[in-house]
C-alpha cells in the first residue's frame, strides 16, 4: 500500500469533511427560531440587553460574518453553548456519548460474532436445513423494524416478567460505585443491546454467507481439499479468511454509524445517549447542540469510512496495487 494511495484517500476524506462543515452551517440556519425569545421567555429585556444577548449567542452580524465566526470556532472545536442547558456543547455531547458508544459498540460486537458464525454455518451447508433455517431467521430479523423488536422485548421481558428495568441507564437513587454500578448499568443495557444485536446480525449473516459462497467456488479450495485437508480446516484456514473481507469493511463502516445508529431504540428504552439527545435538541431547536451533534456524527462516519477503505486496501492483495 503506497503512501500515495493513503495520501489520496486521506485527502478525499478531508474534502468530504469540509463539505459537511459548510453544509452543517446552512442546514440549521434554515430552521426558524429565536433562541433569545425562547430562553428568556417572560423577561422584560431592554433593547440594549437583547443586542448583548444576541451577540453572546453569535446571532449578530450578517450571515457571512456569522459563517466566518462559525468556521473559526469549529476549528477550535468550540461549538458554543447549548441553548437549553447553557453548557458547552462539546461537554454535553461528550457526557452523552459513552452510553451510545457502549450500547451500540457491544451490540455491533455481538451481532458481528453471531452473524458471522451463522453466515458461515449457512454457507458451508448450502441447501441444507441449517442453511434454510439460518437464512430464514436472519432475513426475518433483518426485515423487522428494530424499535418494534424493542417494544416486544420490553413488553415481555421487562413489563410482564419483570426481569429487567423498564428504561434508563441506571437507578438514579443508588450511590453504588465501581463494579456494582457497572453491573447495574449492564443490567439496564441488556434489553436495548439484545434488541440491537438481533436487529444487526441479519446483515452480517447475509453478507458473510454470500461472500463465503463466492469464495467457495474458487479453485484453490478444491486444491486444498485435493491435498487431503479436512473440511473444517479448509473452511477455517482458507475459505473464511478470504470471505471475511467484506464483513470487515462492513464492520468498519457500521462503526461510523454507531453514534447516530440507535435513535429509535434509545427512545423506547429511555437510554440517555446521543440519539435521544438529538431528538431532544430538536425541541427549541437547540441550534448549537444540533450543529455539534451533526458534525460529530458525520465526522465519525467519514473517519470510519476511511479506515474501512484503507483496511480493505491493506487486506486485499488484489487492490493493493491500485
Amino acid at each position, binding site marked *: 500500500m503506497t503512501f500515495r494511495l493513503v495520501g489520496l484517500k486521506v485527502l478525499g476524506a478531508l474534502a468530504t469533511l469540509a463539505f459537511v462543515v459548510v453544509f452543517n452551517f446552512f442546514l440549521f440556519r434554515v430552521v426558524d427560531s429565536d433562541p433569545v425569545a425562547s430562553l428568556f421567555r417572560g423577561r422584560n429585556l431592554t433593547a440594549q440587553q437583547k443586542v448583548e444577548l444576541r451577540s453572546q449567542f453569535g446571532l449578530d452580524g450578517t450571515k457571512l460574518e456569522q459563517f466566518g465566526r462559525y468556521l473559526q470556532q469549529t476549528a477550535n472545536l468550540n461549538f458554543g453553548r447549548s441553548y437549553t442547558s447553557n453548557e458547552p456543547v462539546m461537554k454535553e455531547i461528550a457526557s452523552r456519548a459513552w452510553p451510545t458508544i457502549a450500547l451500540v459498540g457491544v451490540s455491533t460486537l455481538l451481532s458481528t460474532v453471531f452473524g458471522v458464525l451463522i453466515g458461515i454455518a449457512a454457507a458451508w451447508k448450502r441447501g441444507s436445513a441449517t442453511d434454510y433455517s439460518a437464512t430464514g431467521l436472519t432475513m426475518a430479523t433483518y426485515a423487522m423494524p428494530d424499535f418494534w423488536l424493542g417494544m416486544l422485548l420490553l*413488553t415481555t421481558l421487562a413489563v410482564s416478567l419483570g426481569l429487567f428495568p423498564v428504561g434508563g441507564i441506571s437507578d438514579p437513587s443508588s450511590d453504588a460505585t465501581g463494579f456494582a454500578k457497572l453491573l447495574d448499568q449492564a443490567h439496564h443495557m441488556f434489553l436495548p443491546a439484545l434488541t440491537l444485536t438481533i436487529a444487526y446480525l441479519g446483515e452480517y449473516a447475509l453478507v458473510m454467507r454470500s461472500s463465503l459462497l463466492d469464495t467457495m467456488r474458487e479453485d484453490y479450495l478444491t486444491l486444498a481439499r485435493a491435498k487431503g485437508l479436512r473440511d473444517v480446516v479448509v473452511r477455517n484456514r482458507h475459505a473464511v479468511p478470504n470471505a471475511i473481507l467484506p464483513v470487515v469493511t462492513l464492520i468498519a463502516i457500521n462503526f461510523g454509524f454507531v453514534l447516530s445508529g440507535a435513535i429509535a431504540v434509545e427512545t423506547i428504552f429511555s437510554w440517555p445517549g446521543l440519539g435521544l439527545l438529538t431528538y431532544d435538541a430538536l425541541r427549541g431547536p437547540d441550534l448549537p447542540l444540533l450543529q455539534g451533534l*451533526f458534525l460529530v456524527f458525520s465526522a465519525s462516519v467519514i473517519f470510519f469510512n476511511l479506515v474501512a477503505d484503507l483496511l480493505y486496501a491493506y487486506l486485499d492483495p488484489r487492490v493493493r496495487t491500485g
Partner: protein
Amino acid sequence: MITVDGTLSPRRIAWQRRRRAVAHGWADYRRSVPGMIGLVGLLLIVGMAVAAPLLADASQLRAVDSIGNPTWATPSEFPPLGTDNLGRSVWAQFVWGARISLLVGLAATVIAIVLGSIVGILAGYSGRVLAAVLMRITEWFLVIPFLPLAIVLAAVLGPSVRNVILVIGITSWPSTARLVRAQVLTLKERLYVERSRALGASSRYLMTRHILPSVSPLILASLTLTVPVAILSETTLSFLGLGDPTRASWGKMLDEAFSSGALSRGAWWYYLPPGLGIMAVVLSFVLIGQALEEILDPRLRERRA
C-alpha cells in the same frame, strides 16, 4: 420495421432478443421457490392496499366517526382486529396504512433509483474530472447520517407524506449511484462497446442503447433491495412522530400503540399486525431481489443445469 428488402431491421431483432430474454428470465424465476413466495406475498399485500376501500370503510379511521365503538376491543369483540384507544378500527388502519407504507417506499425508491442511475451512468461514462466530482458528491451524501438529517428536514419542511418521500429519496440515491457506476465501468471494457465506438457511435447513443439496457437488470435488482430500506425508514420516521399525523400508516400505528399504552395493556392486536405487515413486505422484496440477482448474475447460477 421491415426494411426494404424484407429482412428484419436491427431494431426489431434487438427487441425480439429482449423479449426472449425476458421470457427465459421469467421461466427461470418461476423455478425459484423463495422468489415465487416473495412475489405472491407482495401481490397479496399490494392487492390488499389497493382494495382498501372495499375492505374497510375510511370512516373507521376517524375518531369522531368511531364514537359508537368500544375502545380497546379485542379482535373477538370487534372483528377482525379490534379497536384502539379511541375506538378506531385497527383493521381499517392496517389496510389503509399499507397504502402509505407501500406508496412511500416505492415513490422514494423511484426517486432514489432515477437520481442514482443518472449520476451513476454519468460518473461511469464521463471523463476523469466529471466522474471524480460526481463520485465526491455521492460520497458526501453517503456520509451524512440519515436519521438526524431526516429529522431535521422533516422538522423544517413539515410532516407530510410528500416530504417524507422527498427526504428518503434524497438520502438513498448514493448507493444506487455507486452500484451503477461500478457496473458501467465493467461494461465499458466490453468488446461491443469498443466496436460501437470504433464505428463512430456517440456517447449518448452508447449510453442509451447499450449501457442503459445492460444496467437495467441491475437497477431492477437494486430497486427491490432499496424499497425495504425505504419502507423501514418511513416506519421509523412515522414512529418518531415525523410522518403525516392525519394519515394512517404502519409506523404511525406503532407510534400510537407505544404512546397510548398498548404495550402494558397487552393489546397485541394493535402493535403486532403493523410490525408483521412490515416484515412481510420487506421479506417479499428481499426474496424477489435475491431471486432476481441469482437470475441476472450468471456467476450465481449454481444449481441450474
